[in-house]
């Protein structure tokens, strides 16, 4: 992780979410909309400030890649957010941005969604460390 400067202590930091619920067919769409976001909101992570800014973004079929990038940049630059949960499917849309992020806090965690199970091969953290297991790194030792 970059940044050997000490990590500022934070109390009452938030968990942000960027989650998708893109479903293959219209008839299934209604039932699977927003389950991940709704679930975590039921667990009490939802925060809405007086300007009606939320700590979550819902990605649907109308959300553009630019909007997702803007949401990611906004959450990753906020001081009051400690963890960003992002569906791996959404993370793949902005893979370059996610992989180039290297701050320790907020921590980016890629989570599965209902229609897209977790794939370790695409996880940005595991991609960073798999270099240790590549043939090139072995030959250099």
């Amino acid at each position: 992780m970059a940044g050997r400067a000490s990590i500022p202590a934070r109390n009452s930091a938030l968990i942000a979410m960027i989650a998708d619920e893109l479903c293959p067919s219209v008839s299934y769409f209604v039932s699977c909309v927003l389950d991940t976001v709704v679930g975590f909101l039921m667990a009490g992570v939802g925060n809405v400030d007086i300007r009606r800014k939320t700590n979550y973004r819902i990605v649907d079929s109308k959300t553009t890649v630019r909007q997702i990038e803007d949401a990611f940049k906004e959450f990753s630059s906020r001081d009051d957010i400690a963890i960003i949960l992002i569906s791996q499917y959404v993370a793949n849309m902005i893979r370059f941005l996610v992989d180039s992020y290297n701050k320790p806090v907020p921590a980016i965690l890629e989570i599965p969604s209902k229609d897209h199970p977790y794939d370790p091969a695409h996880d940005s953290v595991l991609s960073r460390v798999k270099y240790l297991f590549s043939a090139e790194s072995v030959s250099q030792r």
Partner: protein
Amino acid sequence: MAGAEEIEICEEGEESIEAEAKTERGDEKVLQFLDSLDGYLTLMDSLNSKLREGWFDLASARHSMGTLRINTTLLDLKDHSASSTLQVTDQEVESLGSVPRFALSKWASKGGSGKGKDFSTVADSEMGSPRSPQLRHRGFAEEKPSAKGETVLAADEDAEIKKERAKSLSVFGGLVSPKLRGAQLSFETALETLVEIANTRAAMLTAFERITKK
């Protein structure tokens, strides 16, 4: 001559001991990294299961309560603070260096009487077992509610947490399906797992940096 040879042999001996110690330290770093990597993958698998349970319960709740009662229009957009928050501290670990540590505080009411649960995988990895539940530090585990006053306090806190849970579900109406409550508990457990994952991720990346550092 013999003296010079002896000195040479001693120096070679010291060098080989140093080299051996250096190799051992290197091996220790690699083992710590592999431990944290294994912990990370196991936790992700556990998260997957918990989320699937939550999604299934949510789908069951939607089936019994109806789609109109569980949809986006019900999301509370009035200003409110999160009931479950995190504390982030910078922890110095002897073998891993500076590692951010995340601790979850679930259902902390505005009165500040919420319980804090601290899932420290750094301490766990020092013991060599990132997944041993008995090594987790729980914020309220040190309390010994033997006195009546303390028992009443614990009961009050439980009541407070139940109130916060019910408030969170109130957006879906007064009477909700037990499956919805079950989904809430599944996602709460998933949240705890996510905090563990965040701690393990931090330890893993720090261990990786220490291995690749020249």
